[in-house]
Protein backbone atom coordinates (compact mmCIF):
# COMPACT_ATOMS: atom_id res chain seq x y z
CA UNK A 1 0.00 0.00 0.00
CA UNK A 2 1.46 3.36 -1.01
CA UNK A 3 0.81 6.42 1.12
CA UNK A 4 0.55 9.53 -1.02
CA UNK A 5 1.95 12.54 0.78
CA UNK A 6 2.15 16.03 -0.60
CA UNK A 7 5.61 17.49 -1.30
CA UNK A 8 5.11 19.93 1.59
CA UNK A 9 4.52 17.15 4.10
CA UNK A 10 7.50 15.20 2.73
CA UNK A 11 9.68 18.27 3.02
CA UNK A 12 8.47 18.92 6.55
CA UNK A 13 9.10 15.28 7.57
CA UNK A 14 12.62 15.44 6.17
CA UNK A 15 13.38 18.77 7.89
CA UNK A 16 12.20 17.50 11.29
CA UNK A 17 14.23 14.28 10.95
CA UNK A 18 17.31 16.10 9.68
CA UNK A 19 17.25 18.67 12.52
CA UNK A 20 16.60 15.95 15.09
CA UNK A 21 19.76 14.17 13.95
CA UNK A 22 21.76 17.39 14.46
CA UNK A 23 20.17 18.40 17.77
CA UNK A 24 20.62 14.98 19.40
CA UNK A 25 24.20 14.80 18.19
CA UNK A 26 24.98 18.26 19.59
CA UNK A 27 23.27 17.51 22.93
CA UNK A 28 25.22 14.23 23.14
CA UNK A 29 28.44 16.13 22.46
CA UNK A 30 27.68 18.66 25.21
CA UNK A 31 26.89 15.87 27.68
CA UNK A 32 30.19 14.24 26.75
CA UNK A 33 31.94 17.56 27.39
CA UNK A 34 30.17 18.06 30.73
CA UNK A 35 31.04 14.55 31.91
CA UNK A 36 34.63 14.70 30.62
CA UNK A 37 36.14 14.04 34.05
CA UNK A 38 34.31 10.72 34.53
CA UNK A 39 33.56 9.69 30.93
CA UNK A 40 36.48 7.23 30.91
CA UNK A 41 34.67 5.19 33.56
CA UNK A 42 31.16 5.42 32.12
CA UNK A 43 31.54 5.39 28.31
CA UNK A 44 29.81 2.30 26.90
CA UNK A 45 30.57 2.71 23.18
CA UNK A 46 33.71 0.68 22.27
CA UNK A 47 34.64 3.18 19.51
CA UNK A 48 34.29 6.00 22.03
CA UNK A 49 36.52 4.13 24.49
CA UNK A 50 39.20 3.76 21.79
CA UNK A 51 39.04 7.50 20.97
CA UNK A 52 39.35 8.40 24.66
CA UNK A 53 42.31 6.06 24.96
CA UNK A 54 44.03 7.56 21.88
CA UNK A 55 43.61 11.06 23.32
CA UNK A 56 44.99 9.94 26.73
CA UNK A 57 41.58 10.31 28.35
CA UNK A 58 40.84 13.70 26.74
CA UNK A 59 37.56 14.20 24.90
CA UNK A 60 38.74 16.59 22.16
CA UNK A 61 39.25 13.82 19.54
CA UNK A 62 35.89 12.27 20.35
CA UNK A 63 34.17 15.68 20.02
CA UNK A 64 35.98 16.50 16.77
CA UNK A 65 35.04 13.20 15.12
CA UNK A 66 31.48 13.46 16.42
CA UNK A 67 31.18 16.92 14.84
CA UNK A 68 32.69 15.80 11.53
CA UNK A 69 30.52 12.68 11.51
CA UNK A 70 27.36 14.70 12.08
CA UNK A 71 28.21 17.12 9.26
CA UNK A 72 29.04 14.21 6.94
CA UNK A 73 25.82 12.32 7.69
CA UNK A 74 23.69 15.45 7.28
CA UNK A 75 25.42 16.25 4.00
CA UNK A 76 24.72 12.75 2.68
CA UNK A 77 21.09 12.98 3.78
CA UNK A 78 20.63 16.30 1.98
CA UNK A 79 22.22 15.00 -1.21
CA UNK A 80 20.10 11.86 -1.12
CA UNK A 81 16.93 13.82 -0.42
CA UNK A 82 17.57 16.11 -3.35
CA UNK A 83 18.24 13.21 -5.73
CA UNK A 84 15.51 10.91 -4.42
CA UNK A 85 13.19 12.49 -1.84
CA UNK A 86 11.47 9.26 -0.76
CA UNK A 87 14.75 7.43 -0.17
CA UNK A 88 16.21 10.49 1.59
CA UNK A 89 13.20 10.81 3.93
CA UNK A 90 13.17 7.09 4.73
CA UNK A 91 16.86 7.05 5.67
CA UNK A 92 16.60 10.36 7.56
CA UNK A 93 13.64 9.06 9.59
CA UNK A 94 15.40 5.80 10.45
CA UNK A 95 18.49 7.71 11.65
CA UNK A 96 16.28 10.19 13.52
CA UNK A 97 14.53 7.30 15.31
CA UNK A 98 17.92 5.91 16.38
CA UNK A 99 18.98 9.36 17.54
CA UNK A 100 15.73 9.82 19.48
CA UNK A 101 16.34 6.46 21.17
CA UNK A 102 19.85 7.63 22.04
CA UNK A 103 18.45 10.85 23.52
CA UNK A 104 16.06 8.88 25.75
CA UNK A 105 18.89 6.54 26.79
CA UNK A 106 21.18 9.49 27.62
CA UNK A 107 18.61 11.08 29.89
CA UNK A 108 17.58 7.82 31.54
CA UNK A 109 21.12 6.51 32.06
Amino acid at each position, binding site marked *: MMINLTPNILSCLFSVSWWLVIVVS*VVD*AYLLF*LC*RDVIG*EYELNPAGKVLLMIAN*GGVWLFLLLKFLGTVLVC*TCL*LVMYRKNPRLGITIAMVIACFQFGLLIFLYCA
Partner: protein
Amino acid sequence: MLNSQLPISIHSHLRRAFVESLFSTFLCAIVVGIVFLPDEMERSRPLKRVQFCTHSIDGKVLFALVASMNMWDAAEKNSNHLERYDLSKKVPFPQAICEKLNPQCAAVDARNGRLFLIDMLGRLYATGLDSSISTHAFHGQVPGGRPKSMACTQDGRKFIVLNHEGLFLWNVDSHAIDSHANGVASPHWSHLDGEIVCFALNPDSDTAVLGRFSESNGKQTDLVEVNIQTGETKMLFVKKGWRMVRLAISSNGRSMVGVEDSGEMMLLQRTSDSEAWEHRSIPGLCTGTSNVACFSPDSSLLITTDRYSRRLVAWNLDQKEICNKFETNPTIVVGCSFLNEDQFLSWGVDPALRVWNLSNNTLERKIQLSP
Protein backbone atom coordinates in the same frame (compact mmCIF):
# COMPACT_ATOMS: atom_id res chain seq x y z
CA MET B 1 28.01 18.15 -23.04
CA LEU B 2 25.83 16.33 -20.50
CA ASN B 3 28.82 14.18 -19.47
CA SER B 4 31.00 17.20 -18.81
CA GLN B 5 28.33 18.98 -16.76
CA LEU B 6 27.38 16.03 -14.53
CA PRO B 7 30.47 16.02 -12.23
CA ILE B 8 30.18 19.80 -11.85
CA SER B 9 26.52 19.40 -10.87
CA ILE B 10 27.28 16.68 -8.29
CA HIS B 11 30.17 18.69 -6.95
CA SER B 12 27.96 21.75 -6.62
CA HIS B 13 25.19 19.73 -4.87
CA LEU B 14 27.70 18.24 -2.47
CA ARG B 15 29.28 21.59 -1.68
CA ARG B 16 25.91 23.22 -1.07
CA ALA B 17 24.75 20.33 1.13
CA PHE B 18 28.03 20.39 3.05
CA VAL B 19 27.84 24.14 3.71
CA GLU B 20 24.19 23.85 4.82
CA SER B 21 25.02 20.96 7.18
CA LEU B 22 28.07 22.73 8.58
CA PHE B 23 26.16 25.95 9.17
CA SER B 24 23.19 24.15 10.74
CA THR B 25 25.42 22.12 13.08
CA PHE B 26 27.25 25.27 14.18
CA LEU B 27 23.94 27.08 14.71
CA CYS B 28 22.59 24.19 16.74
CA ALA B 29 25.79 24.05 18.81
CA ILE B 30 25.44 27.76 19.62
CA VAL B 31 21.74 27.49 20.55
CA VAL B 32 22.27 24.38 22.72
CA GLY B 33 25.44 25.98 24.11
CA ILE B 34 23.45 28.91 25.49
CA VAL B 35 21.76 26.39 27.80
CA PHE B 36 24.92 24.44 28.75
CA LEU B 37 27.81 26.85 28.60
CA PRO B 38 27.26 29.32 31.48
CA ASP B 39 27.84 26.55 34.06
CA GLU B 40 30.62 25.16 31.94
CA MET B 41 32.63 28.40 31.97
CA GLU B 42 33.15 27.84 35.67
CA ARG B 43 34.54 24.39 34.94
CA SER B 44 36.88 25.47 32.17
CA ARG B 45 39.77 25.67 34.64
CA PRO B 46 41.74 22.47 35.20
CA LEU B 47 39.66 20.08 37.30
CA LYS B 48 41.06 18.68 40.50
CA ARG B 49 39.92 15.66 42.36
CA VAL B 50 41.18 13.60 45.26
CA GLN B 51 42.29 10.09 44.36
CA PHE B 52 43.38 8.97 47.79
CA CYS B 53 43.34 10.51 51.22
CA THR B 54 44.93 9.53 54.49
CA HIS B 55 45.75 11.18 57.80
CA SER B 56 48.27 11.26 60.60
CA ILE B 57 47.79 8.95 63.59
CA ASP B 58 46.18 11.74 65.66
CA GLY B 59 43.80 12.61 62.80
CA LYS B 60 44.88 16.27 62.75
CA VAL B 61 46.76 16.30 59.45
CA LEU B 62 45.33 15.14 56.15
CA PHE B 63 47.28 14.05 53.08
CA ALA B 64 45.42 14.06 49.78
CA LEU B 65 46.71 12.67 46.51
CA VAL B 66 45.21 15.14 44.05
CA ALA B 67 44.82 14.56 40.31
CA SER B 68 44.69 17.63 38.07
CA MET B 69 42.66 17.11 34.93
CA ASN B 70 42.63 19.40 31.95
CA MET B 71 40.80 18.11 28.88
CA TRP B 72 42.68 20.49 26.57
CA ASP B 73 46.09 19.35 27.73
CA ALA B 74 46.73 15.62 27.89
CA ALA B 75 50.04 16.06 29.75
CA GLU B 76 48.39 18.15 32.43
CA LYS B 77 45.62 15.57 32.78
CA ASN B 78 47.94 12.98 34.27
CA SER B 79 49.65 15.27 36.71
CA ASN B 80 49.18 14.22 40.34
CA HIS B 81 50.55 15.84 43.44
CA LEU B 82 50.24 15.53 47.19
CA GLU B 83 48.60 18.16 49.39
CA ARG B 84 48.84 18.44 53.17
CA TYR B 85 46.05 19.99 55.29
CA ASP B 86 46.36 20.94 58.94
CA LEU B 87 42.91 20.34 60.43
CA SER B 88 43.76 22.18 63.63
CA LYS B 89 43.54 25.43 61.67
CA LYS B 90 40.17 27.03 61.11
CA VAL B 91 40.73 27.27 57.35
CA PRO B 92 43.26 24.56 56.42
CA PHE B 93 45.54 25.96 53.74
CA PRO B 94 46.84 23.29 51.33
CA GLN B 95 50.56 22.74 51.34
CA ALA B 96 51.94 20.93 48.27
CA ILE B 97 54.58 18.28 48.98
CA CYS B 98 56.71 16.18 46.60
CA GLU B 99 55.41 18.24 43.69
CA LYS B 100 57.81 16.83 41.11
CA LEU B 101 57.05 13.15 41.73
CA ASN B 102 53.67 12.78 39.97
CA PRO B 103 52.66 9.90 42.30
CA GLN B 104 49.93 7.47 41.21
CA CYS B 105 49.27 5.77 44.55
CA ALA B 106 50.13 6.44 48.17
CA ALA B 107 50.13 4.53 51.45
CA VAL B 108 50.65 5.87 54.93
CA ASP B 109 52.78 4.39 57.70
CA ALA B 110 51.19 6.39 60.51
CA ARG B 111 53.20 4.66 63.25
CA ASN B 112 56.57 5.74 61.84
CA GLY B 113 55.33 9.00 60.34
CA ARG B 114 56.01 8.09 56.72
CA LEU B 115 54.20 8.21 53.45
CA PHE B 116 55.04 5.82 50.62
CA LEU B 117 54.47 7.00 47.08
CA ILE B 118 54.73 5.26 43.73
CA ASP B 119 54.85 6.88 40.30
CA MET B 120 53.65 5.60 36.92
CA LEU B 121 57.00 3.89 36.21
CA GLY B 122 56.75 1.98 39.48
CA ARG B 123 59.44 3.97 41.30
CA LEU B 124 58.88 3.88 45.06
CA TYR B 125 59.54 6.83 47.32
CA ALA B 126 59.13 7.55 51.00
CA THR B 127 58.62 10.93 52.60
CA GLY B 128 57.93 12.18 56.10
CA LEU B 129 54.47 13.12 57.36
CA ASP B 130 56.00 16.00 59.26
CA SER B 131 55.77 19.25 57.33
CA SER B 132 59.39 20.04 58.12
CA ILE B 133 60.54 16.97 56.17
CA SER B 134 60.16 17.63 52.48
CA THR B 135 62.82 15.22 51.24
CA HIS B 136 61.92 11.95 49.62
CA ALA B 137 64.02 8.87 49.08
CA PHE B 138 63.99 6.48 46.15
CA HIS B 139 63.31 3.00 47.49
CA GLY B 140 63.28 0.77 44.42
CA GLN B 141 61.13 0.06 41.42
CA VAL B 142 58.14 -2.18 40.88
CA PRO B 143 58.53 -4.25 37.68
CA GLY B 144 56.09 -3.18 35.00
CA GLY B 145 55.15 0.09 36.70
CA ARG B 146 51.52 1.28 36.31
CA PRO B 147 50.47 0.65 39.92
CA LYS B 148 46.81 0.04 40.74
CA SER B 149 46.95 0.28 44.51
CA MET B 150 49.31 0.05 47.47
CA ALA B 151 49.02 -0.33 51.23
CA CYS B 152 51.31 -0.34 54.25
CA THR B 153 51.01 -2.80 57.16
CA GLN B 154 50.00 -1.35 60.52
CA ASP B 155 53.44 -2.03 62.00
CA GLY B 156 54.97 0.00 59.16
CA ARG B 157 57.51 -2.70 58.28
CA LYS B 158 56.14 -3.80 54.92
CA PHE B 159 54.11 -2.48 52.07
CA ILE B 160 52.34 -4.15 49.19
CA VAL B 161 51.95 -2.86 45.64
CA LEU B 162 49.49 -4.29 43.12
CA ASN B 163 49.89 -3.70 39.39
CA HIS B 164 48.89 -5.49 36.17
CA GLU B 165 51.76 -7.99 36.57
CA GLY B 166 50.91 -9.07 40.09
CA LEU B 167 51.51 -8.35 43.74
CA PHE B 168 54.83 -7.24 45.26
CA LEU B 169 55.80 -7.05 48.91
CA TRP B 170 58.60 -4.83 50.16
CA ASN B 171 60.37 -4.92 53.52
CA VAL B 172 61.41 -1.49 54.64
CA ASP B 173 63.71 -0.24 57.34
CA SER B 174 61.35 1.42 59.77
CA HIS B 175 63.79 4.25 60.50
CA ALA B 176 65.34 5.25 57.22
CA ILE B 177 63.47 7.55 54.91
CA ASP B 178 66.14 9.80 53.56
CA SER B 179 68.94 7.57 52.40
CA HIS B 180 69.34 5.23 49.45
CA ALA B 181 71.65 2.99 51.45
CA ASN B 182 68.96 2.13 53.99
CA GLY B 183 66.26 1.68 51.44
CA VAL B 184 65.39 -1.48 49.57
CA ALA B 185 66.03 -2.21 45.92
CA SER B 186 63.86 -5.22 45.13
CA PRO B 187 60.70 -6.80 46.49
CA HIS B 188 60.90 -9.37 49.28
CA TRP B 189 58.49 -11.59 47.35
CA SER B 190 56.09 -11.29 44.49
CA HIS B 191 53.12 -13.16 43.06
CA LEU B 192 53.32 -12.65 39.31
CA ASP B 193 49.67 -13.34 38.73
CA GLY B 194 47.86 -10.87 36.50
CA GLU B 195 44.53 -12.22 37.76
CA ILE B 196 44.91 -10.59 41.20
CA VAL B 197 42.37 -7.78 41.11
CA CYS B 198 42.31 -6.52 44.68
CA PHE B 199 43.79 -7.08 48.12
CA ALA B 200 43.36 -6.00 51.73
CA LEU B 201 45.81 -6.18 54.62
CA ASN B 202 44.84 -7.85 57.87
CA PRO B 203 45.34 -5.64 60.93
CA ASP B 204 47.69 -8.26 62.45
CA SER B 205 50.30 -7.27 59.80
CA ASP B 206 51.02 -10.99 59.26
CA THR B 207 48.56 -11.79 56.49
CA ALA B 208 46.70 -10.22 53.60
CA VAL B 209 43.70 -11.36 51.57
CA LEU B 210 43.86 -11.34 47.78
CA GLY B 211 40.95 -11.38 45.34
CA ARG B 212 41.97 -13.53 42.37
CA PHE B 213 39.63 -13.60 39.38
CA SER B 214 39.42 -16.56 37.04
CA GLU B 215 37.15 -17.67 34.22
CA SER B 216 38.41 -21.23 33.70
CA ASN B 217 35.43 -22.81 35.55
CA GLY B 218 33.04 -19.96 34.85
CA LYS B 219 33.43 -16.47 36.29
CA GLN B 220 34.59 -16.60 39.91
CA THR B 221 36.76 -14.85 42.49
CA ASP B 222 38.97 -16.81 44.85
CA LEU B 223 39.76 -15.14 48.15
CA VAL B 224 43.25 -16.25 49.10
CA GLU B 225 45.12 -15.54 52.31
CA VAL B 226 48.80 -14.78 51.82
CA ASN B 227 51.43 -14.93 54.54
CA ILE B 228 53.25 -11.62 54.42
CA GLN B 229 56.53 -13.04 55.73
CA THR B 230 56.80 -15.96 53.34
CA GLY B 231 54.37 -15.22 50.51
CA GLU B 232 52.66 -18.63 51.03
CA THR B 233 48.99 -18.75 50.15
CA LYS B 234 45.92 -20.49 51.54
CA MET B 235 42.45 -20.62 49.94
CA LEU B 236 39.78 -18.93 52.06
CA PHE B 237 36.60 -18.58 50.06
CA VAL B 238 35.29 -18.95 46.51
CA LYS B 239 32.62 -16.60 45.19
CA LYS B 240 31.18 -17.96 41.97
CA GLY B 241 29.75 -15.60 39.34
CA TRP B 242 31.61 -12.59 40.73
CA ARG B 243 34.48 -10.41 39.63
CA MET B 244 35.46 -8.83 42.93
CA VAL B 245 37.12 -5.45 42.49
CA ARG B 246 37.56 -4.30 46.05
CA LEU B 247 38.22 -5.87 49.44
CA ALA B 248 38.21 -4.26 52.88
CA ILE B 249 38.94 -5.82 56.27
CA SER B 250 37.80 -4.36 59.58
CA SER B 251 40.35 -3.27 62.17
CA ASN B 252 39.49 -6.20 64.48
CA GLY B 253 40.11 -8.61 61.59
CA ARG B 254 36.72 -10.29 62.06
CA SER B 255 34.76 -8.74 59.18
CA MET B 256 35.59 -8.46 55.51
CA VAL B 257 33.59 -7.08 52.58
CA GLY B 258 34.06 -7.85 48.93
CA VAL B 259 32.65 -5.58 46.23
CA GLU B 260 31.69 -6.88 42.81
CA ASP B 261 32.20 -4.65 39.76
CA SER B 262 28.43 -4.08 39.59
CA GLY B 263 28.43 -2.69 43.15
CA GLU B 264 27.00 -5.81 44.84
CA MET B 265 28.62 -6.45 48.21
CA MET B 266 29.32 -9.57 50.24
CA LEU B 267 30.01 -9.55 53.97
CA LEU B 268 32.16 -12.29 55.46
CA GLN B 269 32.64 -12.64 59.20
CA ARG B 270 34.45 -14.97 61.57
CA THR B 271 33.87 -15.43 65.26
CA SER B 272 36.64 -15.01 67.81
CA ASP B 273 37.00 -18.79 68.26
CA SER B 274 36.95 -19.63 64.55
CA GLU B 275 39.33 -18.90 61.70
CA ALA B 276 36.83 -19.80 58.98
CA TRP B 277 35.10 -16.96 57.13
CA GLU B 278 31.33 -17.28 56.88
CA HIS B 279 29.01 -15.42 54.57
CA ARG B 280 26.55 -13.10 56.37
CA SER B 281 23.57 -11.82 54.46
CA ILE B 282 22.56 -8.18 54.81
CA PRO B 283 19.54 -7.30 52.67
CA GLY B 284 20.24 -4.38 50.33
CA LEU B 285 23.96 -4.16 51.08
CA CYS B 286 25.52 -2.54 48.01
CA THR B 287 27.65 0.37 46.88
CA GLY B 288 27.96 2.58 43.81
CA THR B 289 30.25 2.46 40.80
CA SER B 290 33.18 3.87 42.78
CA ASN B 291 33.15 0.81 45.09
CA VAL B 292 33.32 2.71 48.37
CA ALA B 293 33.63 0.39 51.40
CA CYS B 294 35.21 1.47 54.67
CA PHE B 295 34.98 0.02 58.20
CA SER B 296 34.90 2.20 61.29
CA PRO B 297 37.84 1.92 63.74
CA ASP B 298 35.70 -0.12 66.19
CA SER B 299 34.56 -2.40 63.31
CA SER B 300 30.87 -1.89 64.14
CA LEU B 301 30.02 0.28 61.13
CA LEU B 302 30.54 -0.02 57.41
CA ILE B 303 30.35 3.04 55.16
CA THR B 304 29.25 2.52 51.56
CA THR B 305 27.38 4.65 49.03
CA ASP B 306 24.03 4.24 47.36
CA ARG B 307 23.85 2.83 43.81
CA TYR B 308 24.43 6.27 42.27
CA SER B 309 27.39 7.15 44.57
CA ARG B 310 25.58 10.36 45.58
CA ARG B 311 24.80 9.45 49.17
CA LEU B 312 26.94 7.92 51.89
CA VAL B 313 25.30 5.08 53.76
CA ALA B 314 26.37 3.84 57.22
CA TRP B 315 25.52 0.21 58.00
CA ASN B 316 25.38 -1.16 61.52
CA LEU B 317 27.01 -4.57 61.23
CA ASP B 318 25.62 -5.87 64.54
CA GLN B 319 22.01 -5.06 63.69
CA LYS B 320 22.64 -5.62 59.96
CA GLU B 321 20.73 -2.52 58.86
CA ILE B 322 21.29 1.05 57.70
CA CYS B 323 21.79 3.41 60.62
CA ASN B 324 22.60 6.71 58.82
CA LYS B 325 22.56 8.36 55.44
CA PHE B 326 24.56 11.42 54.40
CA GLU B 327 23.60 13.52 51.39
CA THR B 328 26.61 14.45 49.28
CA ASN B 329 24.78 15.95 46.30
CA PRO B 330 25.75 17.21 43.81
CA THR B 331 29.03 15.35 43.91
CA ILE B 332 29.73 11.69 43.22
CA VAL B 333 31.60 10.05 46.09
CA VAL B 334 34.73 8.10 45.13
CA GLY B 335 36.27 7.32 48.50
CA CYS B 336 36.03 7.59 52.27
CA SER B 337 38.19 7.02 55.33
CA PHE B 338 37.66 7.25 59.08
CA LEU B 339 39.51 9.95 61.03
CA ASN B 340 38.33 8.60 64.41
CA GLU B 341 35.25 6.91 65.93
CA ASP B 342 33.05 9.95 65.32
CA GLN B 343 34.41 11.54 62.17
CA PHE B 344 35.04 10.30 58.68
CA LEU B 345 36.24 11.84 55.46
CA SER B 346 34.78 11.55 52.01
CA TRP B 347 36.01 12.76 48.65
CA GLY B 348 34.46 12.81 45.24
CA VAL B 349 34.66 14.25 41.76
CA ASP B 350 34.50 17.85 42.99
CA PRO B 351 37.64 19.58 44.32
CA ALA B 352 36.78 19.21 48.01
CA LEU B 353 37.18 16.98 51.03
CA ARG B 354 34.28 16.58 53.42
CA VAL B 355 34.47 15.74 57.11
CA TRP B 356 31.29 14.10 58.45
CA ASN B 357 30.24 13.70 62.04
CA LEU B 358 28.59 10.41 62.90
CA SER B 359 27.32 11.44 66.32
CA ASN B 360 25.09 14.22 64.97
CA ASN B 361 24.84 13.05 61.32
CA THR B 362 26.07 16.31 59.85
CA LEU B 363 28.65 17.63 57.44
CA GLU B 364 31.17 19.14 59.84
CA ARG B 365 33.64 20.70 57.40
CA LYS B 366 34.15 21.11 53.71
CA ILE B 367 37.78 21.64 52.76
CA GLN B 368 38.44 23.07 49.31
CA LEU B 369 41.47 21.82 47.41
CA SER B 370 44.02 24.36 46.23
CA PRO B 371 42.76 26.39 43.24
